[in-house]
């Protein structure tokens, strides 16, 4: 058998925040920025999961482009000029996070994830002290039918990390999205109780990649739920090494 041809990946140079950086053309703006110590805030992105550009927190300005582009799913190009931080970007990012707070019932003070929540720390990082749009206060349910885990729709930001990790890493595809727009929710199986799910392996990956208190371990009280996400990168490295 002849050896597989090594795919040619071109090296490109671009500017991020005025700095000249080198990259390969299969990399995203976010990856290259992080390699160069340039911070771009993210919420739905998680190293080890396929990126989908859902939350729009990582939006960046690209010179010549007439719209803002999400750094996590935008590939670098030769000569690109990227701005990752500006007054306009901060305004957009703040508005997005404020809308997430207004959309559901995030009551940090009594949340099991208080102090360990990516939405909460993002609000602090962006200097959000209050929400400018009216809160919706939707009536949402808590599913505690699973023996070890709890799903609280009040805290969900629809990042779909749970859907992605369950489908792409665990391979069970227990989680999915039901409904559209403001009515969208994550569900288990065909919108059945999590405890009755025939596909869930109970691995808990979804719980630990969840950025908020939407998926948690049972029996945790306020501020007690600490997520451990290191497993994901380790698992992906081990799999790549085996291939």
């Amino acid at each position, binding site marked *: 058998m002849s050896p597989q041809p090594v795919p040619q990946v071109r090296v490109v140079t671009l500017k991020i925040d005025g700095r000249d950086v080198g990259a390969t053309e299969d990399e995203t703006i976010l990856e290259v920025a992080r390699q160069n110590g340039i911070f771009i805030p993210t919420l739905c992105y998680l190293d080890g999961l396929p990126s989908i550009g859902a939350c729009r927190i990582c939006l960046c300005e690209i010179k010549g482009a007439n719209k803002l582009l999400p750094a996590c799913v935008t590939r670098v190009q030769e000569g690109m000029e990227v701005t990752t931080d500006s007054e306009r970007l901060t305004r957009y990012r703040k508005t997005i996070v404020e809308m997430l707070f207004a959309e559901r019932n995030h*009551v940090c*003070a009594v949340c099991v994830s*208080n102090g360990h929540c990516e939405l909460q720390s993002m609000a602090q990082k962006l200097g959000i002290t209050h929400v400018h749009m009216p809160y919706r206060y939707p009536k*949402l349910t808590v599913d505690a039918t699973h023996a070890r885990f709890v799903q609280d729709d009040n805290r969900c930001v629809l990042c779909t990390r749970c859907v992605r990790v369950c489908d792409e890493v665990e391979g069970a595809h227990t989680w999915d999205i039901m409904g559209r727009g403001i009515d969208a929710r994550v569900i288990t199986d065909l919108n059945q109780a999590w405890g009755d799910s025939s596909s869930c392996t109970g691995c808990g990956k979804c719980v630990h990649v969840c950025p908020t208190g939407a998926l948690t371990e049972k029996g945790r009280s306020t501020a007690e739920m600490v997520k451990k996400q290191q497993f994901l990168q380790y698992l992906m490295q081990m799999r790549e090494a085996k291939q």
Partner: protein
Amino acid sequence: MSKPRLATAWLDGCSGCHMSLLDMDERLIEIAQQVEVVCGPYVDIKEFPENVDIALVEGAVSSEEDLHRIKKIRERSKLLICMGDCALTANVPSMRNAWEPDEVLARAYIENATMQQQIPRTSVPRLLNRARPVHEIVRVDIFIPGCPPSADVLYFALTELLAGRVPDLSSRTRFGA
């Protein structure tokens, strides 16, 4: 020059923010020497006074009484400061907001009551349809997140204000802190 007039007010909150103020311990004396405390749960006065320089407000706006008071506080204060998550976000009091006030009252005073099942209607203010953050009702000048903001954060905020600066609290406190 006369000392700045400081008032505090307690709307729909648990008083934890006021407890945090007291937690400043001996630093209270330092603050007290720089201001004139003219109103608050610790001051025996019923009516929110005129010409207040700094008003610290704890709690969400949840009842007709709260609504009346916050408007008066705004009218009579130069600086209105929201102290803690209930004033900022409506926080725990807002957890009733997905239901109508009648449903909430029936749940608390009838369904879950074992004795004297009755909804209080006299001598207590009527609940608004929703518990709301203060800034949805009146203009707010400064926001101090936290549940409650720590004594250190409140001390920092007050001393900065008394020094004529706007306190930068972003690295010191957050929602739920």
